[in-house]
């Protein structure tokens, strides 16, 4: 048996041994142990090194507030997790754990040299030390900080686990399964309400698990607990979830729960999710989260072996583990006296109880003395000794807050400290419920509520099991009453209860130099009492500033242990009342939560939807390379053989310009605008005039925001007097429809217009090239598509190869072009038909990259690439699209805004590099004079840039200050390996400026 385990004691299963490893060494444990309890059972206290000073650190607590005992855990291949709290991780056969933040080993750590230079690392050290020179950041400071400070290493493998999520609704959600939560659950459960009871521990009971000697309703605490859990489990209306943390309390009583499902299992069921995130919407919430024990702040309070008294009591009673052989206690609260008595009864020698208070309940003092414990009241601890484990503590008397006599040394291998208890009000604070400072108990209490919730038990400083049970039952009854149900608070009779009280302090008095004391407040972030005082001396007045300057409370434990101590010291240093100093804000999550739990099912293929057109499968079979465009995946190019993108695009461009290309344009956004007032609506929305557009004809439409900037564009066909087929950019369709709906519903509700998204109703194949009509003509029935009968910018219904079609004669390439729209279900059939029929013209399927090149050769803009939300029609050189005679349209008034008519605006122009082989980088910045001193004045940037196979040279578009006035002039593009010269061309059209090729 392990050296510090007491046979038969605790709730661990003594007949079920478990083995796991810590830093490669096998550790003997029992089923029911945590990593922390098992290490302590084997006498291991040193488990890690602190963040900044690399000081040896031990296990401080027995719960989720643990700041020190963070370990890396490996739960099988690929299942590594850093920063796991050893106090929460349950052991199982095969679990591997390792200490963190040490090199080369835990006992021999090079980084601990930081501790000897601790005066360099005072509060605000990051701000002060690493200010200048700026260039030192990347090469010196940051690598140093990263190497010297830090917690565990990130996992390197992809997380093989999966995570579930679920919604749930209930009448009463009870957070915390201790005495208060159980009493609330019994009361609410017996009333018939639907109840969810959650606890972060592996079993219900809370502090009852550490206090077995108390009797409730004539039973010992654990028998009562068994009976209570059995009753609750038997209620169909009660759901109990252990290993489940309420991580956040959101609006309208929605609480996020993270349920750990498999981390405690040696062999989890196949395909079981690791964790499940619950979003519970409760009519009533009972917060029974208990309280956290506060450390005392004194020199050397962080040595391994110094721990919370309540934690020692938990290890003893719940896990059957003694935390040492001979202990010393320092406390300001009665609870630590009981912890000492329990340890003494279990065979641990208790050498001293040091209490800061002058007056302590005489029964406690008498009991201690009767047990042979030396008692020192009105005393302080001025230091401890021992490097990797505490070996002694130094005690001195105190009068009027000052050390008033000689000190003496108490030998011990364990120091149990208790500075009182802090109600856990994190979730209550998430709701923006206000807190009120209780001067008598020196705690913050819940005050004004913003949600339908009750706070019960130690969470509102109720102390002792009898009062806590009553408080919980009352909270349960209040919740039930709010639901309109009847149900009286369950009552309990408690004997052998342990009640008590205590005081809250700032750092303890010392006779040494406070500047050299190593008295820690935030153990994980290595924040000391003197850091808080320094921060105040250096001008930090608000507690939020003190927090950020010192990093107090900013570690993964979020100040659960450090907040109040930091506040007490800051209040003293500021000379202001605690109430006026106030508390920093608690934010979710309550404890660190995995990204996996938050992501849930939204990973891999489920992270984001991938929209595919009906022609997508054909492109995939043909080996297309895809790219994401909005939520679609689109074929970018169709490589043949060993072609790279450049070669494939050159071939596709050439084929389209010389014969025939085909393109899947189904992703284009489509909105049908219908109704007697459709034309009026179009006139008001788009810049262009629509009244005179005849049915069967199309027009390029330009949409502005009310601010005058370009939002979207597309070809719009008028099908009949009262029906428009509007196309939008691929990514813009939802935005445009939303904008149209907004104006229609809220500004012009009198217009009789209906808007329908038809993007997915149509599959669209674009045919471009001089042979486009030759291919199409024999397939079309019911329409003459000759140039005379069906000129450029026409639309009509017909059949194509027997398929019902809406045919457009439009072009985004500058070639003779048609866009065949068929109902989406015929998309693939149409494509394959055109592919077959097109073989005689060597028809070439092309992708988005070729589409981009071909349109750039023609100077057609792409919204969002050549525009960025600050580009006006004039900036883009498309003022011709504005219906100047129209009295109004969205954005018209803004085109006269002073800033929009001012000179010096960036205008879209063409750029030709002096070396025709140089292809500019999109996004590259443009300057007037490359010899000007840095920082140079930037005139604009390159928006589109390609190799043009048709022109045998590179082409680019750019937005440049007063661009059109620079026609023929040189600009320069400084790049890392040299400056590129280019000539401005006022027009963005590079190819076939007369548009002759459209008119075939």
């Amino acid at each position, binding site marked *: 048996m392990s050296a510090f385990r007491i046979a038969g004691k605790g709730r661990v299963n003594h007949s079920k041994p478990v083995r796991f490893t810590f830093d490669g060494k096998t550790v003997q444990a029992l089923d029911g142990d945590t990593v922390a309890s098992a290490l302590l059972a084997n006498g291991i206290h040193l488990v890690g090194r602190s963040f900044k000073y690399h000081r040896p650190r031990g296990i401080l607590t027995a719960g989720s507030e643990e700041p020190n005992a963070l370990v890396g855990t490996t739960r099988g291949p690929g299942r590594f997790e850093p920063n796991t709290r050893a106090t929460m991780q349950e052991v199982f056969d095969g679990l591997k754990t390792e200490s963190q933040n040490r090199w080369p080993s835990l006992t021999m750590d090079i980084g601990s040299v930081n501790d000897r230079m601790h005066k360099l690392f005072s509060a605000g050290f990051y701000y002060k030390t690493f200010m200048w020179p700026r260039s030192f950041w990347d090469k010196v400071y940051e690598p140093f900080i990263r190497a010297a400070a830090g917690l565990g290493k990130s996992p390197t493998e992809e997380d093989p686990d999966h995570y579930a999520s679920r919604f749930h609704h209930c009448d009463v959600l009870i957070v915390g399964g201790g005495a208060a939560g159980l009493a609330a659950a019994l009361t609410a459960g017996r009333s018939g309400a639907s109840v969810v009871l959650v606890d972060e521990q592996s079993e219900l009971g809370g502090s009852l698990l550490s206090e077995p000697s108390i009797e409730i309703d004539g039973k010992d605490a654990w028998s009562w607990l068994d009976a209570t859990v059995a009753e609750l489990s038997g209620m169909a209306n009660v759901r109990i979830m252990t290993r489940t943390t309420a991580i956040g309390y*959101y*609006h*309208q009583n*929605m609480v996020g729960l993270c349920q750990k499902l498999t981390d405690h299992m040696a062999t989890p069921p196949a395909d079981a999710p690791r964790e499940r995130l619950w*979003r519970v*919407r409760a009519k009533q919430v009972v917060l029974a989260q208990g309280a956290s024990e506060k450390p005392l702040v004194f020199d050397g309070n962080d040595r391994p072996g110094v721990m919370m008294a309540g934690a020692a009591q938990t290890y003893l009673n719940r896990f059957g583990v003694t935390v040492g052989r001979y202990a010393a206690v320092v406390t300001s609260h009665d609870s630590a006296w009981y912890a000492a008595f329990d340890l003494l009864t279990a065979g641990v020698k208790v050498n001293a109880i040091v209490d800061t208070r002058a007056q302590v309940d005489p029964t406690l003092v008498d009991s201690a003395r009767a047990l042979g414990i030396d008692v020192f009241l009105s005393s302080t601890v001025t230091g401890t000794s021992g490097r990797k484990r505490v070996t002694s503590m130094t005690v001195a008397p105190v009068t009027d807050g000052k050390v008033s006599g000689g000190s003496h040394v108490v030998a011990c291998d364990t120091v149990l400290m208790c500075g009182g208890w802090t109600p856990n009000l994190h979730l209550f604070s998430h709701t*923006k419920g206000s807190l009120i400072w209780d001067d008598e108990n020196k705690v913050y209490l819940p005050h004004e509520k*913003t949600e339908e919730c009750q706070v019960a038990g130690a969470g509102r400083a109720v102390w002792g099991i009898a009062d806590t049970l009553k408080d919980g039952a009352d909270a349960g009854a209040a919740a039930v009453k709010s639901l309109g149900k009847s149900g009286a608070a369950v009552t309990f009779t408690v004997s052998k209860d342990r009640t008590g009280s205590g005081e809250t302090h700032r750092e303890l008095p010392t006779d040494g130099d406070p500047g050299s004391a190593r008295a820690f407040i935030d153990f994980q972030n290595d924040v000391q009492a003197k850091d808080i005082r320094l921060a105040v001396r250096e001008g930090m007045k608000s507690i939020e500033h003190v927090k950020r300057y010192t990093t107090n409370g900013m570690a993964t434990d979020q100040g659960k242990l450090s907040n109040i101590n930091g506040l007490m010291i800051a209040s003293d240093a500021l000379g202001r009342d605690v109430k006026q100093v106030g508390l920093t804000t608690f934010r979710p999550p309550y404890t660190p939560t995995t990204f996996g739990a938050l992501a849930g099912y939204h990973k891999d293929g489920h992270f984001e939807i991938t929209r595919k057109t009906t022609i997508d499968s054909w492109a995939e079979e043909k080996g297309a390379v895809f790219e994401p465009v909005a939520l679609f995946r689109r074929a970018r190019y169709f490589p043949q053989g060993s072609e790279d993108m450049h070669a494939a695009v050159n071939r596709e461009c050439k084929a389209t310009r010389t014969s025939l290309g085909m393109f899947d344009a189904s992703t284009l956004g489509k909105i049908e605008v219908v109704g007697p007032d459709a034309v009026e609506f179009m006139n008001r929305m788009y810049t262009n005039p629509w009244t005179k557009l005849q049915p069967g004809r199309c027009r390029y439409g330009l949409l502005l925001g*009310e*601010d005058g900037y370009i939002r979207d564009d597309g070809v719009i066909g008028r099908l009949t007097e009262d029906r428009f087929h509007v196309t939008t950019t691929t990514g813009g369709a939802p935005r445009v429809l*939303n904008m149209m*709906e*907004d*104006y229609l*519903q*809220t*500004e012009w*509700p009198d217009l009789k217009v209906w808007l329908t998204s038809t993007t997915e109703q149509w599959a669209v194949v674009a045919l471009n090239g001089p042979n486009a009509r030759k291919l199409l003509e024999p397939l079309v029935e019911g329409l003459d598509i000759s140039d005379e009968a069906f000129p450029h910018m026409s639309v009509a219904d017909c059949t194509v190869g027997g398929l019902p079609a809406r045919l457009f004669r439009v072009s985004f390439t500058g070639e003779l072009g048609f866009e065949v729209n068929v109902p989406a279900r015929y998309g693939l059939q149409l494509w394959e038909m055109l592919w077959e029929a097109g073989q005689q013209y060597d028809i070439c399927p092309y992708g988005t990259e070729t589409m981009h090149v071909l349109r750039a050769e023609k100077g057609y803009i792409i919204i969002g690439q050549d525009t960025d939300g600050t580009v006006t029609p004039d900036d883009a050189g498309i003022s011709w699209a504005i219906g100047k005679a129209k*009295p*109004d349209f969205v954005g*018209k*008034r*803004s085109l*006269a*805004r*002073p800033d929009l008519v001012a000179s010096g605006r960036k205008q879209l122009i063409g750029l030709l590099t002096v070396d025709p082989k140089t292809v500019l980088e999109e996004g590259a910045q443009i300057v007037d004079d490359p010899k000007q001193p840095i920082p140079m004045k930037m005139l604009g940037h390159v928006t589109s840039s390609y190799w043009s196979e048709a022109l045998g040279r590179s082409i680019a578009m750019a937005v440049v200050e007063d661009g059109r006035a620079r026609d023929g002039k040189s600009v320069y593009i400084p790049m890392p390996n040299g400056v590129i010269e280019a000539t401005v061309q006022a027009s963005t059209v590079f190819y076939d400026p007369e548009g002759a090729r459209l008119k075939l």
Partner: protein
Amino acid sequence: MLLIHCPYCDKELPELEFAYAGEAHIARPVDPSALSDDEWRDFLFIRSNPRGTHFERWRHIHGCGRFFNAARDTVTDKFLTTYPAGEARPDISKLTGSKA
């Protein structure tokens, strides 16, 4: 996550179904060309941004698709009421009771 009452569907539904749409009761001028630059600037950009009750627009975008107005407290995030677009601004004192 808020629950929002759609005044058309007459149901409290999760925030996920809704989209925020800016401050309410800012009507587009009937004749924008009649406005001075400053007046047009105010219409475009100047918003009340209050600490407290804010009248704002929402759209039940993944539901009935309709725009509606809401009074919401920007400190607590809580909705005081929602009402159809086009209805007059409700009386706040009746919504917030004695605190108004």
